[in-house]
């Protein structure tokens, strides 16, 4: 089982790195989908089947398709990044890596709180989650609807064709 974990983890990190370094957007997206699948696999291992399913459906299924759609729609399948200067790029990479290292070293030296299991290992199953969701987290659940409403209106608003002159065009 440990081996499986390490293989999966290695693959996840590899896929994530590939997302970053692939020059072709489509390839990035595909690697991203791959990453999501791997993460779902982790979820399964962690006995969080519901989330694993949701992750596949929502992320790999819906979101990534959306991405793919946009990329294709905008005809972006060529590389538009012109790496004019490596300095900011390497600076970015180094600083990100440094941040990770710093964080990791802090993490290594610090003692985590005790990890007793209090609620059993079946929390990730649908019936448990459902109960918690509708008992304790009903309110956020309802609020979520507003979130979606906002997103919906937003998309409609932004995607709508311009019918009237804008208030004032700021384009210089």
């Amino acid at each position, binding site marked *: 089982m440990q081996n499986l974990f390490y293989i999966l983890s290695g693959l996840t990190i590899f896929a994530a790195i590939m997302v970053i370094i692939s020059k072709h957007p489509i390839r990035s997206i595909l690697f991203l989908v791959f990453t999501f699948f791997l993460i779902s696999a982790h979820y399964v291992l962690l006995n969080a089947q519901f989330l694993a399913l949701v992750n596949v459906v929502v992320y790999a299924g819906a979101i990534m398709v959306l991405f793919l759609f946009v990329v294709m729609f905008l005809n972006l399948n060529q590389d538009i990044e012109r790496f004019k200067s490596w300095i900011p790029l390497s600076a970015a990479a180094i600083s990100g890596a440094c941040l990770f290292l710093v964080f990791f070293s802090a993490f290594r030296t610090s003692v985590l709180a005790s990890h007793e299991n*209090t609620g059993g290992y079946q929390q990730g199953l649908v019936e448990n989650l459902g109960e918690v969701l509708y008992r304790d987290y009903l309110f956020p659940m309802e609020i979520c609807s507003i979130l979606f409403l906002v997103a919906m209106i937003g998309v409609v608003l932004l995607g709508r064709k311009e019918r009237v002159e804008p208030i004032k065009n700021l384009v210089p």
Partner: protein
Amino acid sequence: MMLALIILTLAGLLILFLGFSKIRNVLLPVAIVALVAAIFSLTTQQTFWNQYLTDMVQIDGISRKISLIIMYTALGLLPFFNLFKGRGQEELSDFLGIYLFAIIGSILMVSALNYMSLFLGVEILSISMYVLAGANRRSVHSNEASLKYFITGSFTSAIMLFGIAWIYVESASLSMVQLSGAATNMMSFGFLFLFTAFALKVALVPFHFWAPDVYQGTPTLFTASMATLVKIAAIGAFYRLVQLNYAVLPDWINWYFVLLILATLILGNIQAVSQNSVKRLFAYSGIVQSGFILMGFLYQSEFVDWTMLFYFIAYASASLVGFIVIHFVETQSGSDNLDSFVGLSKSNPGLALVLTISLISLAGGPLTAGFMAKIFMLSQSIQNNFTALALVAVISAVISMYYYYKVINAIYSKSADASWSVPFYYKGLLYVFTVITLIAGLVPSFLIGLIK
């Protein structure tokens, strides 16, 4: 508060549906009535709804007050949505709907007791604002503002979630209050990331870079709500977060804030000095003001609570006036550059007057709300032995005179522009804000009494 949320949600939906119908002129009244009703419901205590809240949110003393301030601010801004009438019924209804939902988001933020509702609140507010920032679809500036806001915003969300996750790792709970004992090392990191995310949201130096650009590109009325509503909500939530966890936070967290304050006050002010766009200038002004407000984070007392609230009111009333006047000037002359303010005192004395007073208040001119607010903050920090910080704040206030001065200077430059006017009801509203600014400066104890 549940009732208020329900009222706002329903009103939002109603407005969206009304948007499809042909009944004009009814959208705004509906929104206003709903907001007034929400305010009213928030001022009264209802225990009935509490069972549905399940400790996700709690409307206690300060969060109620901050929510009320946010809602009053929103109410003040609402009538100006009438200016969008020219853009068609549907757009107006969308704007109003999103706006009402944004208010919900901010109320959630400032009254959250659980990271989950906090996150949801932040996201509702942010997404609304991304959309509103890009509301001017044809304008490249608006697009760019929206995009920058969006990317920074989601980056911020990620950082915030990372912080929350680490807090969760250590405490195995998403509740904001049940922590006890000192925070462990990794939890401190969690807080650090969480706070940094809020610093990004509030736009504190050095996490402020997005703010001026976004503020400038966004349609001005929405900038106004960004600068007031969003900022107050973010600071309010931030403040609540800090105060709730004050006991467990590591001792260096004050130095973290001091660092942020110093950077904000000094760099924010200095960057603002050479600005040419008044909107950007106000953005920087907002940044600096939040630096001032952050001084209240350094200590805990009831006194700080109302000091913050007072500062919110002072800042909101002045800033709102500022942005609205910018909007009018912008529509008049097509640009928000200093040049378009030249001679405003001649061409529109009323606007010049209110803008001047709001600028004085922002700068901390005596006998205005801003002055009082600053005095309270300074006296707080001096009382808590942050004398050097107070000194820096004082000097930064002097630097801030540089750019406020520039605007006032432009306003009162002589120029032979033809005069123009704005409808009296808008003007009347602006006067109301100005009067609030002045009253808060002249008889602050009256306002403090109200706050208490």
